[in-house]
């Protein structure tokens, strides 16, 4: 049921935007649009099937950990 809803919304979005983009032959926009839409639909679908997705913020946190530790050591943050 959720899957159907997601796919229908995706179809709606495509119907809204695609004709104009094709008409004006905006190549880059078409690529960006498709990539992002696929990404969005992908995340939504994954969410319906797996309820406990890890948040991408964990990656970012580990990326910034050294700097964060440095600032804590100085005492700028807690």
């Amino acid at each position, binding site marked *: 049921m959720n899957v159907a809803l997601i796919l229908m919304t995706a179809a709606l979005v495509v119907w809204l935007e695609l004709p104009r983009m094709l008409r004006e032959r905006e190549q880059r926009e078409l690529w960006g649009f498709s990539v992002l839409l696929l990404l969005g639909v992908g995340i939504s679908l994954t969410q319906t099937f797996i309820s406990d997705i890890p948040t991408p913020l964990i990656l970012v946190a580990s990326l910034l*950990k050294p700097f964060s530790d440095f600032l804590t050591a100085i005492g*700028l*943050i807690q």
Partner: protein
Amino acid sequence: MPNVKISLRQLTIITALFMIGTAILIVPSALAVKAKQDAWIAALIGIGIGSLILALQLLLSRLYPDMNLVQISEKLLGKWLGKSVCFLLLLILFLGGPVAVLQEIGTFLTVQIMPETPIQAIIILFGAIVLMGVRLGLEVLARSAELLFPWFLLLFLSLSILLFSQVKWENALPILEQGPGPLIPAVCSFISIVYLPNMILLMIFPASVNRQSEANKAVFIGSLIGSLILLLIVILSILVLGPTITEKTMYPSYLLAQKINIGNFLQRIEVIMAVMWFITLFFRISFYFYATVAGYCQIFNIKNIQPLVIPLGWILTTLAVFIYPNVMFEHNWEARTWTPFSFIFGLLFPLLLLGLHGIRKIRSKGAPKKSRFPE
């Protein structure tokens, strides 16, 4: 990049609303945790230092008028390095900025006002209007901001005036009980929430304003309005609620609104006050989102941002549902990771760019003295 023009007044209002954004909900508590009853002093100092940092960011914009952030970084760092750095920064900003704030709204509403409503519905609705606003364009967002700002002011001023009778001055004492030490993390917290993310607005305003020279002044005035309003909220929180409650509550401003009581008739109108925060949160997310979309389009040389808004908005809404698994994570993230990141983005990045600008200038002029901040 779409060629829109927004007026100076609209720029001021945009800056003010952007700064107030989430801060109005979380700043009193964030400051009180660290500085207790001296939170207002921390805010005051924060305004001072923050303004200096803002001046730094605006300097970058003044040196390269008519170029937005990505274009400046491309010019100074070279095309590929500039694009990649911006890509990474914008990615992290996107995750920690609009997505996070969107979840904030969901959490706020689910916790305080409508506990029985599923958070996805709230987030989807808000995401939908943000999407609509950004898709209609910057001009429409700016005009809506101009329309809604007086209402925000009306609600805010009525909040302050109605609460005035409940102020207990002794809540601010003793002043500087533990010395200036605890103020430092508080000030850093303030700056990181309020002033540092302003860097992203460099994506919007250089290319979009009528008179370049007066634009900086407009942004400055906007920032002053925004931070003064925040200062007022902090002061009210401390004076009316007291430092312990402020520190322990998630949303002290909401508690403030609950306390309004005029003649036992006008009471519990906190939901109307909540509209005030809806307005600021809406514009914060909208401009955050708009700036990130514009940034990505600039990185990939995409001329028209409109078709990309809906898919990115979709990603925004989907991510917002699970971006913070729980409140503990949220607090940890905000203190430990977001603050350092905002320092990188809002302070070190512009410093780097300005330094590179200085080096360029010296190379082209061949001057013997090396100065960090030219002219």
